[in-house]
């Protein structure tokens, strides 16, 4: 399982020239969590565009109490610190755009078309290969900083039995190993495009519409999917598109419900 797939940071700096990430990449052989580290560095004044990547996370996190399995060298575990000029009310668009950025990067590298499960999980079929968790520090009127944590399964040839039915990797899907370096470069370029568009003055409404259109095209989950949602109370229904703020709508026997947080799963499915 362990393959030699190192990062070449100077080459990445060159590939990312002109973007805020160039010269701001930090690599760790092992770390507790790239997101926790990123939030700490942000508090200490680290600049916009700082990138923290690790070969292994010993305490990688997902939503709620979920852990993210990050064995050494098997995946791309990266956190990106941003200080965008964007209103807190609009910052959720970055969470949606991050999923689109990964989808685009995977398409460029592998020609595979991944499915997006709202808000930003990436799947092949019913199996997940990428999770994104964003942490925000904001005042009511101003975003101080946010850290987007992205975990992508790249080299795993198999998963432990408890994950086998719900997890996959680029290796499993294609039968070959893809260099993390190229995946990271493509991802950061896509992310830069998305964030730059979202922070363009006077263009917000247009860019948000365009993100919704791409989500509807690039996801089998947005409309007509039978799902159950694990929020404070569990509810099930058929997805019915996005509202104007990008929240998923689900038609239930009790009426139309808006999904705030996630935890969207296929009804009767295991994924």
């Amino acid at each position: 399982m362990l393959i030699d797939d190192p990062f070449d940071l100077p080459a990445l700096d060159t590939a990312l020239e002109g973007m805020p990430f160039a010269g701001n990449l930090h690599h760790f052989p092992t770390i507790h969590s790239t997101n926790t580290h990123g939030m700490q560095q942000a508090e200490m004044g680290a600049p916009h565009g700082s990138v923290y990547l690790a070969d292994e996370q010993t305490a990688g996190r997902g939503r709620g109490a979920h852990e993210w399995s990050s064995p050494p060298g098997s995946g791309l575990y990266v956190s990106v610190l941003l200080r965008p000029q964007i209103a807190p009310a609009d910052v959720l668009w970055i969470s949606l755009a991050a999923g689109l950025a990964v989808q685009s990067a995977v398409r460029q590298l592998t020609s595979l078309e991944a499915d997006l499960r709202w808000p930003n999980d990436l799947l092949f079929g019913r199996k997940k290969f990428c999770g994104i968790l964003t942490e925000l520090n904001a005042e009511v009127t101003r975003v101080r900083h946010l850290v987007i944590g992205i975990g992508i399964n790249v080299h795993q040839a198999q998963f432990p039995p408890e994950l086998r039915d719900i997890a996959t990797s680029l290796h499993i899907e294609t039968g070959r190993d893809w260099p993390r370096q190229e995946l990271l470069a493509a991802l950061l370029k896509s992310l830069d495009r998305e964030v730059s568009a979202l922070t363009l003055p006077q263009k917000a409404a247009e860019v948000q519409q365009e993100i919704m259109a791409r989500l509807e095209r690039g996801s089998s989950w947005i409309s007509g999917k039978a799902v159950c949602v694990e929020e404070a109370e569990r509810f099930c229904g058929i997805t019915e598109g996005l509202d104007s703020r990008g929240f998923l709508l689900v038609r239930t026997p009790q009426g139309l419900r808006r999904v705030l947080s996630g935890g969207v799963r296929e009804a009767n499915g295991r994924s």
Partner: protein
Amino acid sequence: MNPEEIKELKELIEFLKDNNIGEFDLERGDLKVRLKFAQQQGAVDMPALSANLSHLLAASQAHQMTAAPAHSHVAPAATPSPAETAASEDAGLHIVKSPIVGTFYESPSPGTAAFVKAGDQIENGQVLCIVEAMKLMNEIEADVAGEVVRRLVQNGQPVEYGQPLFAVRPR
């Protein structure tokens, strides 16, 4: 009514007493709460408190609460009304508001202790709660030092942009 909800109502009563508020009305759907305080020593006027008992019991069933006869004179914990928010601002309390739409969480992850509870002394910048939407977690920090007087929303409840989350007495 469960212990958490009884505790919340007690906190609400304490909050109203502390601020010398004479009367408090809350209406939400078929739930009606009226609290009236005797003016000497701020003692709770129990007959007034129990005036809308029948409504409260109906509402408590809707909230899947087990009715405890010994406590049936108290109201189910409810989202604070705008009236309460206004009253707390009037009383010089600082209101911590949500910068995003999302789900309110009182603790870092399910099953762990709450970041803060009523009565805690907090520092400026201390994390009070998390509001989550679209897998974006926002740790809400105190923007003032003081005492947490009351949490204004329930754990797991959806909150809107700008919605009051905590009432803090600055020091």
